[in-house]
């Protein structure tokens, strides 16, 4: 394709050059009398002239308009004069000839055009929408002919015009068809008007199929594909703030481990429950492991992303529908010439925020403050501090910023995707290949003989094929797969961070000469973070997966009009292999008595033996296999103003862990069920729908196995009513919908076949005998049989859809309410003297959840600037009604009435100001350890003690109640700029541990944040200081490290999630290379974050900062279509 065009182009240049060279002077009338013989039919004029030149030996000169002309001409002559031949040939063209010397000049004839209607030419133009943006895919046809064209990605088209009376017909779904007569124009830009009638034909993806958008009464939201294109390997990180109702937070930035936690409309269960995720109609995320199976889909292969939120939308999923459903459709082929898209970007990443640590001298001064102000001797002598400050001997007086030592400044990302999309009416295809690579920000050591650098790479491929076998039979085959490889240090990054926060900056240097690893503790505690990172070996994670599905659709219209049958079969294969090769080398420390030998070398003594200098092997693997099948009958037919639809579907699933290590887990996980739907609409104004799911779960006893989940929904398009006419100019579209129904949740945490007792052979055993060798392993019950069943969720949803400002502004608002009963919990109120190994499960929990969510979209033109704005907002409030907690001793201890993830602890009433105040207040633990500047707690029950009876709700937890996002796209000429902000609110985190309160664990030996200088001191007794009075050691800190509201921190944030600046190259530049569209862009991710929380990235999941932070990336890339 490309080469064909290229050669034409080159040929044209050659021709015109040649023509110019041979141009000369002298009278040319003679040559017109030259007699030639020629016979050509329907060839381009330029080709015809060339042919004539060849047979006549006469040179022709002409310009580009002749070369470009797509007019075809005929010539039939037998020893006819050249002038006569040319008269005939040019008769139907806008060109004339004139003889100059011995050559002939062909030129444009303005008069001739006036005379002749039959002017063949290529007309170019553009189709724009009401906002002035080009519409791709518009069909442009010459009426009454089979000549036609389809607009490209920018809305541009080219079409051959044979006659000025030709009529062009522009048609596109959702827009009014437009016709116009060509006349003498060479370029026609057409603006299409949206067609409210056609809006009714827009289609939405719903459970087990599609539905006309206008008739949907369930709550669902969809995100446009281009929104998902971001420099992230994991699409789950693209969702927060872009879809109303989706609560998503990214908990780590480590390459290969970046999947977000997702909840639909917040939490309504006691343990994390992600949505059910389906890719092309097959379950590929089970709601427990959340998004795990879609993590590795290349975002570029996704056509649409739809979230089903209410019961009407999810009831058909029965026992699996309660936590919401995400439907992903991959891209399908279109009827068009093969279109190749290429996208490539490459960028650099750095951490959004690295914890800042105190430097060695500040650290030692703070330690001395912590000790001396509490009647302990100073830990560091002034001499020691001075030597450190003056860098006297960094081996003996080190000053190390461990975070600097383990981090690189930048990592890299790279992504490439090539896809081909095309096909004819009978066969369409989409084929794609992608590559993603991310390198981490942790250092490696050149001395290591192995590679412990963090690097994650992944190859994706997708192939979707749609065949029309007969006029009524269709076959679809889809395959998606990937192979990924992640390399990491043997010690997990979280562990390395933990060590970096544990080891003080002055404990020991990074390493000793001769590559001895420094360490002080004989049991290996206070590990050297740098050695942990670089000297402990490596870990390799290899994953691969193939999703496949084949679907057959038979139109049964011959039997019953509107009936069709679909059956689908799917096989998924997943496998992974983890290899760890690790070691722990001995550690050394200079002798206390004599740090240097006589020869000046360090006198190192071995402090910890380690387990040798060679790498040891550990491996694990997983293999998953899944079969899924569904068969359905669909019915859709309209009778006058009535329209009736129906669906009945049978499905079942069989999922096996092929590498299971015991029989029970090797038994396939199975589900089967039936789903049904009936829809009715009248005159596209009134809509009603009933959805039913009936399915079963192996987890429950036969009698409690199958569940029936009904839901109904009604909708009313007010703007379709007569009485709405007066308002129609202001509000063009107004729809109200309401749904009510049930969905279920059958997942038992870590338990299968709940109706069967489990005895474990792994229980503690005992040794008899004097040799210590006749040990017997133990058997004990590990879980009790219980006759439980699924949790049932009753959901209601009231939604409004409004469009105004001539459809430019649209607003969708949903109010939702959920009452979930029978949530699995282990019995809480069972006394321990019953002697159960663990409390049995029961359908005990009740949670209420309600909230509001909305989406606002606005598209407008300001002059030549096209601007679109989009915003979403989600708020939910969950409330524990019942949790089987035993009756509370005091009302404030009751956890009913709080949100699910609420945190409990003491209420901090500021810091003590005087000894008198301490003497008259209750304190936890030993009063003599408490000093002014320590945290004062509220004695809720007034018993003079601070203990478990003063524990109450102090925070709402780290899953935000509010998630929002907003952004805009601006296009001006060839430039476009897109910005998207994402934020959370009402999220809190309890921070704790050694990384928080300095010197509070490990006997006081811990690193300190730089923020440790913001503390209460006797000289500046600031009640608002970040830290209370410093203390050294566990006991001295025990008052301040109690779980209390002091340590509850607001982790809300607003972040510039993406910014994207692009420039579409002028068409002329690359068109001749065959590119239809080329764009270069620069893209930033997580560029900046606003948050009150300053210690680390507020989004990551850690209470002490020991998690691989999120990553900010800036990348440049290019897309092109051929």
């Amino acid at each position, binding site marked *: 394709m490309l080469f064909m065009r290229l050669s034409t182009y080159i040929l044209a240049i050659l021709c015109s050059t040649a023509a110019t060279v041979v141009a000369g002077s002298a009278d040319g009338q003679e040559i017109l009398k030259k007699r030639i013989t020629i016979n050509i039919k329907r060839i381009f004029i330029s080709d015809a002239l060339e042919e004539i030149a060849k047979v006549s030996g006469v040179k022709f000169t002409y310009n580009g308009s002749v070369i470009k002309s797509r007019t075809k001409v005929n010539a039939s002559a037998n020893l006819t004069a050249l002038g006569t031949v040319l008269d005939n040939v040019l008769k139907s063209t806008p060109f004339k000839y004139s003889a100059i010397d011995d050559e002939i000049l062909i030129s444009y004839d303005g008069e001739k055009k006036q005379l002749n209607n039959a002017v063949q030419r290529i007309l170019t133009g553009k189709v724009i929408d009401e906002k002035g943006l080009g519409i791709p895919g518009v069909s442009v046809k010459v009426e009454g002919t089979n000549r036609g064209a389809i607009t490209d990605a920018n809305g541009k088209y080219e079409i051959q015009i044979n006659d000025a009376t030709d009529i062009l017909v522009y048609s596109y779904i959702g827009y009014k068809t437009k016709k116009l007569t060509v006349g003498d124009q060479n370029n026609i830009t057409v603006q299409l008007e949206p067609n409210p009638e056609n809006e009714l034909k827009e289609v939405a993806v719903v459970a087990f199929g599609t539905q006309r958008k206008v008739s949907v009464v369930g709550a669902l939201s969809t995100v446009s594909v281009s929104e998902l294109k971001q420099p992230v390997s994991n699409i789950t990180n693209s969702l927060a703030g872009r879809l109303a109702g989706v609560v998503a937070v990214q908990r780590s930035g480590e390459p290969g481990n970046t999947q977000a936690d997702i909840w639909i409309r917040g939490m309504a269960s006691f343990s994390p429950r992600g949505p059910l995720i389906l890719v092309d109609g097959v379950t590929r995320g089970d709601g427990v492991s959340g998004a795990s199976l879609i993590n590795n889909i290349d975002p570029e292969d996704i056509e649409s992303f739809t979230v089903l939120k209410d019961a009407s939308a999810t009831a058909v999923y029965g026992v699996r529908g309660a936590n919401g459903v995400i439907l992903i459709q991959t891209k399908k082929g279109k009827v068009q010439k093969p279109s190749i898209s290429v996208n490539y970007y490459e960028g650099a990443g750095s951490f959004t925020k690295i914890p800042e640590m105190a430097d060695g001298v500040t650290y030692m001064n703070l330690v001395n403050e912590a000790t001396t102000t509490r009647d302990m001797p100073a830990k560091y002598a002034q001499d020691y501090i001075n030597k450190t400050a003056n860098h006297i001997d960094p081996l003996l007086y080190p000053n190390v910023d461990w975070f600097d030592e383990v981090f690189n400044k930048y990592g890299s990302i790279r992504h490439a995707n090539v896809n081909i999309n095309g096909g004819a009416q009978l066969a369409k295809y989409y084929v794609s290949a992608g590559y993603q690579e991310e390198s981490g920000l942790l250092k490696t050591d050149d001395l290591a003989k192995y590679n412990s650098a963090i690097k994650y790479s992944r190859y994706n491929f997708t192939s979707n094929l749609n065949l029309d076998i007969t006029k009524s039979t269709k076959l679809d085959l889809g395959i998606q797969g990937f192979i990924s490889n992640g390399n990491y240090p043997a010690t997990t990054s979280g562990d390395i961070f933990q060590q970096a926060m544990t080891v003080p900056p002055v404990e020991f240097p990074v390493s000793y000469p001769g590559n001895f690893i420094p360490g002080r503790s004989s049991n290996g505690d206070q590990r050297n973070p740098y050695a942990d990172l670089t000297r402990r070996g490596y870990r390799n994670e290899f994953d691969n997966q193939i999703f496949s599905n084949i679907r057959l659709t038979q139109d049964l219209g011959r039997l019953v009009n509107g009936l069709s049958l679909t*059956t689908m*079969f799917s096989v998924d294969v997943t496998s992974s292999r983890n290899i760890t090769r690790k070691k722990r080398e001995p550690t050394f420390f200079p002798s206390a008595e004599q740090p240097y030998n006589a020869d000046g070398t360090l006198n190192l003594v071995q402090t910890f033996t380690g387990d040798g200098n060679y790498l040891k092997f550990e491996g694990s693997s997983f293999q998953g296999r899944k079969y899924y099948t569904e068969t359905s009958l669909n019915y859709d037919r309209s009778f006058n103003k009535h329209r009736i639809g129906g669906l009945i579907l049978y499905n079942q699933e069989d999922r096996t862990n092929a590498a299971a290590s015991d029989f029970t887990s090797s038994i396939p996980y199975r589900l089967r069920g039936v789903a049904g739907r009936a829809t009715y609409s009248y005159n596209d104004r009134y809509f009603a729908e009933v959805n039913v799911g009936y399915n079963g*779960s192996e987890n429950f006893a036969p009698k409690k196995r199958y569940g029936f989940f009904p839901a109904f929904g009604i909708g009313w398009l007010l703007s379709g009513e007569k009485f709405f006419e007066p308002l129609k100019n202001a509000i063009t579209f107004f729809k109200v919908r309401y749904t009510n129904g049930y969905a279920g949740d059958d997942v038992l945490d870590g338990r299968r076949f709940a109706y069967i*007792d489990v005895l474990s052979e792994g229980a503690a055993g005992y040794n008899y005998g004097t040799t210590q060798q006749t040990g017997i392993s133990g058997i004990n019950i590990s879980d009790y049989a219980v006759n439980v069943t699924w949790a049932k969720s009753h959901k209601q949803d009231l939604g409004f859809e409004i469009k105004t400002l001539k459809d430019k502004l649209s607003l969708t608002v949903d109010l939702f309410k959920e009452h979930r009963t029978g949530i699995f919990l282990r019995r809480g109120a069972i006394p321990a003297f*019953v002697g159960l190994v663990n409390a049995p499960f029961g359908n005990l929990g009740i949670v209420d959840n309600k909230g509001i969510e909305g989406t606002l979209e606005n598209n407008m033109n300001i002059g030549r600037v096209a601007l679109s704005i989009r915003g979403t907002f989600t708020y939910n409030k969950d409330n524990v009604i019942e949790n089987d907690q035993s009756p509370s001793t005091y009302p404030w201890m009751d956890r009913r009435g709080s949100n699910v993830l609420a945190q409990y602890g003491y209420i901090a009433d500021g810091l003590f100001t005087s000894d008198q105040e301490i003497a008259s207040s209750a304190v936890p633990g030993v009063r003599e350890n408490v000093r002014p500047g320590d945290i004062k707690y509220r004695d809720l029950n007034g018993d003079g003690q601070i203990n478990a009876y003063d524990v109450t709700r102090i925070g709402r937890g780290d899953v935000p109640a509010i998630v929002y996002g907003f952004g805009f796209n601006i296009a001006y000429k060839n430039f476009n700029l897109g910005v998207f902000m994402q934020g959370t609110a009402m999220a809190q985190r309890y921070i704790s541990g050694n990384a928080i309160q300095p010197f509070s664990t490990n006997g006081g030996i811990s690193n300190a944040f730089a923020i440790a200088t913001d503390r209460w001191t006797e000289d500046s007794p600031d009640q608002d200081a970040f830290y209370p009075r410093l203390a050294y050691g566990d006991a001295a800190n025990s008052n301040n490290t109690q779980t209390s509201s002091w340590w509850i921190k607001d982790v809300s944030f607003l972040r510039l999630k993406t910014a994207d600046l692009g420039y579409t190259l002028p068409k002329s530049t690359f068109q001749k290379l065959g590119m239809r569209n080329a764009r270069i862009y620069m893209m930033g991710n997580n560029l900046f974050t606003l948050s009150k929380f300053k210690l680390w990235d507020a989004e990551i999941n850690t209470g002490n900062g020991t998690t691989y932070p999120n990553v900010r990336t800036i990348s440049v890339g290019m897309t092109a279509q051929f």
Partner: protein
Amino acid sequence: MVLLTSLNFSCKKGYLDQVPDDRLTLDETFGSRSGAEKFLANIYSDIPDEGEQRFAVPWTAGSDEADFVWGFAPSNTINTGSYDATSGVTGTYWQKYYKAIRSAGIFIYNIDKVPDLPANLKSQYKAEARALRAMYYFLMMRLYGPVVITGDAAIPADAGYEDIQLPRNSFDECVDYVSAEMDAAAGALPVTTNNDNKGRITKPIILAYKTELLLYAASPLFNGNTDYAAMKNLDGKQLMNQTADVTKWKKAADAAKSFIDQFVPGTFSLYRKNDENGNYSAYLSCRDVMLDDWNNEVILSRNNNNIPGLQYERVPYHQGYSSEVSASGGLGATQNMVDAYFTANGRSIDDPASGYVATNYTGYQAPGDNTIRGIWNSWANREPRFYVGITYNGSRWLNTNSGDVITYTFNHGNSGKETGGNDYSTTGYMVRKNVTTGTWYNGGRSLVMLRLAQIFLDYAEALNEAEPGNANVLTYLNMIRERAGIPQYGSAQLAAPADQAAMRLAIRKERRVELAFENVRFFDVRRWKIAEQTDNGPIYGLNVTADPPSFFNIVRVETRVFQKRHYLFPIPQNDVNSDKQMVQNTGW
């Protein structure tokens, strides 16, 4: 084809009826001898592993014997008195023992079904389970006082809440029940086992625990303790008897005497060991009674245990020495305990005749050492058990396989605070007892739970209360002293205690020293009701933040809290909240 595949696939019958038929059931467990024995082994596993001092068992550092340097040790919760009915430390034992009690009930109910188990073993195993169940009740009673006797039949796992509203039994009911169960079990148990079965409950083991049970029942905490007058069930039942009954001491003394008559010296006797020259060595006898596996003094010893963990806490940091002699030294012996040891002439250090000197250095060759070393005077000329129990500054380490290691516990010493970081003794002494003379991280020996010396001391104590002046009191007390290598009461060097009270004091002192660091003191001070004195207030040690000479100054290490309510653990709050019949211990 797709259609066919899916139809074929979906038409299988019983798609969801996959029963995991390899799933182990109770019937299968008791369908074979090996299954039943495994179930029994699991019941045995709840015999507490007292090697887990750091993480689980707070008895040593939670008494006035010792102190842990680490903040995470559960003993800190005990010492600061900051636990309550919701604390893990108070709930753990309640849950653990009741689980074992339930399992024992299931075992006793099912054991007769096992087809391939000989009848004599059925009877023996059943008695073992019964004995263990009784023992677990006793171990709970010494912590919580009156408990709930749940009966022989296990409460169903899915019992309704109304079916589990059980009241506590009175302490006397508990004692009667447990002692009857112990007697019943003893009747079906052998006196000894072969070497392959050491560790199984035998007749003397359960009778020794019965002696312990009756001793507790006679002790002031449980015998007429009016502090618990208000502790009554909803129906008015008094949970703790309100009048002291001296015959309870008699019962305890009789039980001890009966044990001695039956099993001493035939089965057990005090362990005695000679040195390499063939001379009796009190030091070696007292040291190795803990180390020599299943010696003739051991009544019950636990085979699986965390001996390496226990030794890790007791072996000093010893910076710069090989790993076999270097550990943490995090379990410090208190000055209070150091002072409790007698001097070599058998007297307390506050006895003017003891010759105790607390100042200056002296030259002294300690038992177990091979030479005279310069040490602080306080640690010279003490009784042999002192050198068994305490590692002090300047002492030679037990393991000399890679040369002599001298322990220094002052601030910059090889095991001092500054050197060890988080691994040092807060008192300047380390607990030394029950530590191997070999490599500390090797386990492979059993952990002594109960030995004959304790029964002798139980007997002397009970008899002194039941029949003051009975000659056996002094006889059995002196047997302990004789073995320990110190003068006996009533001998030429040392007068016998003058009266019952003096004798009581002498017995308590002897018990504190003989059974030091054996998880006895924690319970003794409670049952004697003296914990408000011993465990409340300052704990002393050396000044570990200094180098000599200030190091030798005795300073307060911490101030401990013990209030009246701390004599008994609280019943876990969840049980009190869930069970409306459950009355909480007074003060909680």
